[in-house]
């Protein structure tokens, strides 16, 4: 199946000389949740802005649902809904009118029954006659989502959907995104919360300094790069790693009271049995053991550091 969004060799440099995107290529499959992860200023918003038509690319092209976003922008854009990062909303209008307005802008005939459904699903129906300015920040964000969904898009872009949002609303938002995915909507969200990407995404793309560093299935990414760490609390602090076990990825922490062993869960042998035996032989006695799986955050940080150096 051909991808629903295909980004081909996309570059963007601004008049000031800043390169926001450098030769980015990326395929997004229909029906998936793709999280674009990266530090602030990595180029996530620029990428989304070009796909949605807010920013003109310097070179390269984007195909959405088989339509070029520049040459055939009407067909391409009618498939897309965008929830921007900033809360930009018509303050004096009512919720219902704002949503109707967006639907009209996208060339769709009025359909209040459908809009009711959208507002219900976002718990906004009771607020339909309230002015946007009377709503709380979280509610305003939901109105933005309702607006983006008002024309029944097949692809939804959420730019930092949970930035500055409290925990409850964040959970609600995640639930909503899953429900939309179940309805067949393709979702692309940008975030710098790794927790969010880990929680939600089917695939994760990591962007840094205008380049896509990797796009990978989340589970596989965790497996491939996911390392485990064994923490050994020692009976007596050590001044240095014993000679007999050096060169195996061991390090000391907490003033020699903890010995840390990094190992690869995918390797044929983890080397734990041997290590413990060797430690006992060297006269090191262990008081407690603890192992932890590295999170996406560790993966991400190591990736950024690795490529950055």
């Amino acid at each position: 199946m051909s991808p629903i969004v295909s980004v081909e060799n996309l570059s963007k440099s601004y008049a000031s000389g800043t390169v926001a995107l450098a030769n980015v290529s990326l395929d997004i499959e229909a029906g998936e949740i793709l999280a674009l992860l990266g530090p602030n200023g990595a180029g996530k918003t620029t990428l989304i802005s070009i796909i949605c038509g807010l920013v003109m690319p310097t070179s390269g092209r984007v195909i959405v649902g088989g339509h070029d976003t520049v040459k055939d922008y009407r067909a391409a854009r009618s498939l897309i809904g965008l929830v921007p990062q900033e809360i930009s909303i018509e303050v004096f209008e009512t919720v219902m009118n704002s949503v109707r307005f967006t639907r009209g802008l996208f060339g769709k005939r009025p359909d209040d029954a459908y809009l009711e459904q959208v507002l219900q699903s976002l718990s906004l129906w009771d607020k339909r006659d309230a002015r946007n300015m009377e709503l709380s920040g979280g509610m305003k964000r939901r109105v933005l989502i309702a607006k983006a969904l008002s024309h029944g898009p097949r692809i939804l872009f959420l730019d930092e959907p949970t930035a500055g949002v409290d925990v409850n609303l964040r959970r609600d938002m995640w639930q909503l995104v899953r429900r939309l995915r179940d309805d067949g909507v393709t979702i692309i969200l940008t975030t710098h919360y790794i927790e969010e990407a880990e929680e939600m995404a089917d695939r994760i793309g990591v962007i840094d300094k205008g380049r896509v560093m990797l796009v990978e299935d989340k589970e596989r990414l965790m497996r491939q790069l996911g390392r485990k760490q064994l923490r050994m609390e020692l009976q007596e602090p050590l001044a240095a790693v014993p000679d007999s076990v050096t060169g195996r990825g061991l390090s000391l922490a907490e003033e020699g009271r903890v010995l840390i062993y990094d190992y690869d869960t995918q390797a044929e042998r983890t080397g734990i049995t041997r290590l413990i035996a060797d430690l006992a032989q060297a006269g090191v006695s262990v008081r407690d053991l603890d192992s932890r799986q590295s999170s996406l955050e560790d993966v991400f940080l190591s990736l950024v550091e690795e490529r950055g150096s």
Partner: protein
Amino acid sequence: MNWISIWAIYRFEMSRTFRTIAQSVVSPVISTALYFVVFGSAIGSRIESVEGIGYGAFIVPGLIMLTVLQQAVSNASFGIYFPKFIGTIYELLTAPMSFLEVVAGYVGAAATKAVMIALIILLTASFFVDLRIAHPVWMVAFLLLTAVSFSLLGFIIGIWARNFEQLQLVPLLMITPLVFLGGAFYSSTMLPPFWAAVTRFNPVLYLISGFRWSFYDMAEVPVAISLLAIGVFLAACLGIVWWIFRTGWRIRQ
């Protein structure tokens, strides 16, 4: 043409007008009534007639033009500047609409509002002075052409402006002086020859002259030239809008 989208913008803008009906309609009507009191009654009582027309009646076309120009420019410029200012312009830019359709929505609404107010003022004026309209079809044509061209100018100003001061600058520094010096309240034949000649360089003179001709069948410049002047102005504004569309100037990075 994507009529549903144009209609969405048009209706949204018109609902803004009706929501702020007091500022939108009442204030221009009050200020026009004031002009009648000051110019028509106080000063007009000392001027018997201009070219055979009572002074109060003489200034009506000029007053309407003053309001149409101000309203068209300020409505259209505010209409497009506000989404830029609060950030909702992202919706216009991501909608499956051509730029010209966006322009049609905003300019259509601004021109409608300007014409509405012009008609209200005309009605108000008919209570104060004895009005006659010699060429009603031409009167409407001049009104529509002027409202549309100056709404286009307003749209361009709204795109150009980076802050509210700039938004106010053009109407304040250009439109009002040009209308006052364009013969809204006098005939340029009343001026000394030198200043009468200078006035010919004021484009608004041609608008007011043509519009006044449609009322009283008298013009300072030939009607064809008035029409040509509006035509050229309209074409220039359309050209600039087209250029903005091609380059994305101040809207798309």
